[in-house]
């Protein structure tokens, strides 16, 4: 799963477009990640402002 730093995120939706398994969604309340996430890090590497990281659980 990924973690969104809501203080950094600008809600641009770019990360949604790089997720190979469609796990991300841009909602009114910001980026939401579903259980489908495979922790591939594509979105983490993409985010222009560094708002995403992998949550270890």
């Amino acid at each position: 799963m990924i973690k969104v730093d809501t203080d950094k995120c600008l809600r641009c939706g770019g990360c949604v477009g790089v997720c190979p398994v469609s796990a991300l969604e841009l909602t009114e309340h910001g980026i939401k990640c579903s259980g489908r996430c495979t922790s591939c890090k594509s979105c983490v590497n993409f985010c222009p402002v560094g708002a995403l990281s992998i949550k270890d659980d």
Partner: protein
Amino acid sequence: MIDMLSNLPDEVDVLVVGMGPGGSGAAKRCAELGLRVIGVEKRAEIGAPKRCGEAISRHGMTERIGIEPKGPWIVQEVHGAIVYAPNGTSIKVDYDGPEGWVVERKVFDKHLASLAAEAGARVIAKTEASGFRRENGRVKVTLKSGNESKEVTSKIIIAADGVESKVAREMGINTFNKLPDICAGVQYEMAGIKHTGNMIEFFFGNDTAPGGYIWIFPKGRGVANVGIGIRKPWAKKTALEYLDDFVQSRPELKDASIIEVNSGGVPVGGFLTDAVDDNLIVVGDAAHHVNPIHGGGIPEAYMAGRLAAETASEALKARDFSKGFLKRYDKAWNDQRGTRLKKILKLREVIETMSDDDLNWLAEYLKGDDLVEFSRGGSGLVKLGKILMKKPRLIKLARKLL
């Protein structure tokens, strides 16, 4: 708030999802062709927040979008460009009059949506489309606005939902971007800059903006969009970190004010060659309809929207909404725009493998007109190939172009 959804018809010919330039181009043309069309936008304000440098060329404005560059959304005429090689060598493109414009996208996107509404399309902001189901040759969609929701049945869906591109994915086309195929962009709109002028500026270099470039697009009165697009695997830090380094290094920007911050993804990896499925046409960023050299996508999206509407109209006449029939949209895009964009992509693929030293060397041989040719996909390929042949190390690259 009035219940906007209950006033909508239960059935339409075309549902346009997303009201950026692509959606507005599609909705307007559908309405002009007499189709019953709704355009929904999930954001509360069409065009805001912007995810854009806001520059549009003359050809893009007057041909592909097809409107007169007049109105409150024009903030700056563009009379030329200055392109900087990594070592600071500059190449200038100068025109006597405006060859492009910087627009205020919040005003511009709303203007495009109003033109669609004026033509007869029903446009609704703060309404999200989801849950696409094909049933009896039609598509059922759930529209949600706040606590209200409504089912609408449409013959055709035009997916103009931008870089997120969830509609196409829900309906069967995988539109996701691999990392080298998407620019990570971030931008400051800055004020209090001493000289903004009427030239747009581009800065290249593997330390400055790996896999992309930095831009300064003037907006008049000391205001400018200062932004960056970079790509992995070339980039070693975030786009924001590269942009901050640049701003700090420029005396004219270092002490200027930041009045807006934006980010976004630009799908520069080449357009989808299969942008249709049963009952579905994909346009704009959702279908990666972007110029792969400079990343401009406003005119491309608008034009794709128009072509999608024309195909939808033909499909309604033929009562055939199958992928096989809608394929003519792919062909129209390819004939009218795609072939050009493919050439531009090829050129970029060559340039992106060059080192800073190679780029500095190349800058000595290029004139402004060559750069214009490159960005338009004109005769630039052969010209660049011939220059690269001069340097033994680059001959292999040159062969790709010749």
